[in-house]
């Protein structure tokens, strides 16, 4: 009866209750959706680390991580790879050579890490081959040793990517629905060539308004970029005898991932080519990458390999990328704290409403006490009303959040204007929000707690009422 009465009571003043419910709905939606976006970004970043950058477990020479010395290599790699490949729970294993050097074109140079890989093996562990940009080439499909797979940012830094507005580009932009004034403005620099993004953007800024640039600049930039297929560049580095050496390479393909640091530094070439230039002995490598059937087994596999190879350094992805591991592990607590802050703010609104409720119903509360409703039941009635108010808004907020997250988890949300900033931190600017069912359970519990806590002060006020005084109230 108390529950039924409490439910009916919240609809006595529909407008007021709906305002409170709407504020809780909006607050919960804002919180859950923001958490969904954060969670999606973190999940994508972790996937990125696992699938494109680090894999699950790595083995290196004990000194390699501290000195990056070419001489700190693992010997007997073939038997190690064979042994680990046969272990239960291991998906694939590959070995790599690592060098630090310079990439140079006629106009530009950049510091890079040169990775010697076995492309067919790499494909079994990582997905970097799937990040190939359309029209830039392929992922080591030809056996030619001078082919390299480089990042989009490095290609831009080395002026391998250039910009040109052609008739074809203008008609593509026109059919993409760009406004006529933007099309006519960019037609102004039709035929001009730009060596780099900076000079192209400078010209674009002079022709477009800032609104036009922020709305369509990225699309124009993407359409205007041209690649010199199989463009030549040199890689220079020191060999194992500390002699300056290098080789001429050609861009075999360009990859694009949401990590500008990785993109601008990591150059992949065939292991065989790098080994011959550096005179690295056969059956050696600087690190071994291991992918597992289940990433959650990374910890136990690490321990197992440490015992198996005590002279080598074995680390799992969480140890190699502790920042990501910490972010991933702390995410739950962070989301909970974030939601608790939002609910704490909402609680003040609920307290205010419930105080009004008590003040408006002083006489009725006095009557209820007079006819025999004890203090415990009065307290429970006020508390139930408060929990209902919070829960109705909270559930509405969660339903709205669930629908929006479900839609955006397949379409994604583009933060185009913040792309550079996101990618500088290794995050994609195209985020697919995601959230686990368990989080909704946590939020439901938090909402109930908020409702209960918000009711305490108004309910105590109600308990302090003297029934005789309350009945005299007009």
């Amino acid at each position: 009866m108390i529950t039924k009465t409490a439910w009916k009571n919240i609809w006595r003043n529909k407008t007021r209750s709906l305002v409170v419910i709407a504020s809780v709905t909006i607050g919960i939606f804002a919180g859950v959706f923001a958490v969904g976006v954060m969670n999606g970004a973190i999940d994508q970043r972790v996937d990125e680390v696992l699938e494109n950058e680090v894999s699950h477990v790595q083995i290196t020479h004990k000194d390699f991580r501290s000195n990056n010395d070419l001489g700190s290599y693992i010997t007997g790699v073939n038997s190690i790879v064979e042994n680990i490949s046969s272990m239960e729970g291991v998906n694939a294993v590959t070995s790599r050579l690592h060098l630090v050097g310079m990439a140079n074109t006629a106009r530009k140079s950049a510091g890079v890490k040169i990775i010697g890989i076995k492309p067919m093996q790499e494909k079994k562990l990582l997905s970097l081959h799937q990040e190939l940009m359309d029209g830039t080439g392929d992922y080591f499909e030809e056996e030619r040793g001078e082919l390299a797979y480089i990042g989009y940012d490095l290609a831009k830094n080395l002026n391998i990517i250039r910009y040109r507005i052609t008739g074809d580009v203008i008609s593509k932009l026109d059919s993409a629905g760009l406004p006529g004034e933007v099309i006519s403005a960019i037609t102004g620099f039709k035929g001009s060539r730009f060596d780099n993004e900076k000079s192209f953007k400078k010209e674009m800024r002079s022709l477009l308004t800032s609104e036009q640039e922020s709305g369509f600049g990225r699309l124009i930039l993407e359409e205007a970029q041209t690649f010199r297929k199989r463009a030549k560049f040199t890689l220079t580095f020191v060999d194992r005898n500390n002699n300056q050496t290098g080789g001429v390479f050609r861009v075999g393909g360009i990859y694009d991932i949401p990590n500008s640091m990785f993109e601008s530094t990591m150059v992949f070439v065939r292991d065989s080519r790098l080994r011959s230039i550096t005179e690295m002995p056969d059956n050696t490598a600087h690190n071994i990458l291991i992918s597992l059937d289940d990433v959650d087994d990374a910890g136990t596999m690490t321990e197992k390999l440490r015992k198996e190879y005590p002279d080598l350094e074995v680390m799992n992805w969480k140890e190699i990328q502790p920042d990501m591991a910490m972010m991933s592990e702390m995410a739950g607590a962070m989301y909970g704290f974030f939601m608790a802050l939002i609910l704490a703010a909402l609680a003040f609104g609920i307290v205010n409403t419930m105080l009004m409720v008590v003040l408006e119903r002083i006489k009725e509360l006095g009557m209820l006490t007079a006819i025999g409703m004890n203090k415990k039941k009065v307290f429970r009635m006020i508390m139930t009303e408060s929990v209902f108010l919070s829960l109705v808004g909270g559930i509405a907020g969660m339903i709205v959040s669930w629908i929006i997250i479900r839609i955006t988890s397949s379409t994604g949300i583009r933060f185009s204007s913040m792309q550079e900033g996101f990618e500088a931190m290794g995050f994609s600017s195209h985020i697919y929000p995601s959230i686990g069912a368990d989080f909704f359970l946590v939020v439901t519990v938090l909402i109930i707690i908020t409702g209960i806590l918000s009711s305490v002060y108004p309910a105590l006020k109600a308990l302090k009422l003297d029934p005789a005084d309350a009945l005299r109230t007009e």
Partner: protein
Amino acid sequence: MKVLELNNVHKVYNTTHVEVHAVNGVDLDFEEGEFAAIVGPSGSGKTTLLNMIGGLDTPSEGKIEVNSTDLSTLKSSAVIDFRMRNIGFVFQSYNLIPVLTAKENVEFIMNLQKWPKKKRDERTMELLKAVGLGERAHSKPSQLSGGQQQRVAVARALASKPKFVLADEPTANLDSKSTETLLDIMEKLNRDENITFIFSTHDARVVKKARRVITLEDGKVVSDETRDK
């Protein structure tokens, strides 16, 4: 059989500057089945006396025994429970719960006492029929007239089969016809079920129906008249 005994009951309110003696040495006994009215001018102490009898207020001095139980010896939670089981209240402004129907208002107290649903439904309908509102069981207070609301309040007061009903100015907001109907109903319940009714009132119509009239002035009983009817 005595259901209520008041011995030298005083109530003093301490306002900022002066002491107000609302009830000043009242001695009264009520037998089971009485139909009594407490009358007197405003400020004579009628409502204060009723509140003390009902355990809503405590005497500054003296003793009130309901069914031989001294209310001052009970803890506040026990007083509330005692009230629920022994005393019915009817208020001047009805004080029904506006979001509940007539039936729900009447059965509210039985719910608090955890009566089984079947028994509760039977008692509720019996009471609503007794006050002439069997057909309006599912109406909300806002859909009822003042007189009908007060009849629902009477049904609610009788729900838990109390020993007596305290009614504070029950007819003050009612027109003549509603007052007449209400008084007839209460009189019938008094006669049929032997429930003691004690009213505080200004209303001559109530006084006319009462079989005992106690007059208060300045917190003192100045007359106590029993009539044969």
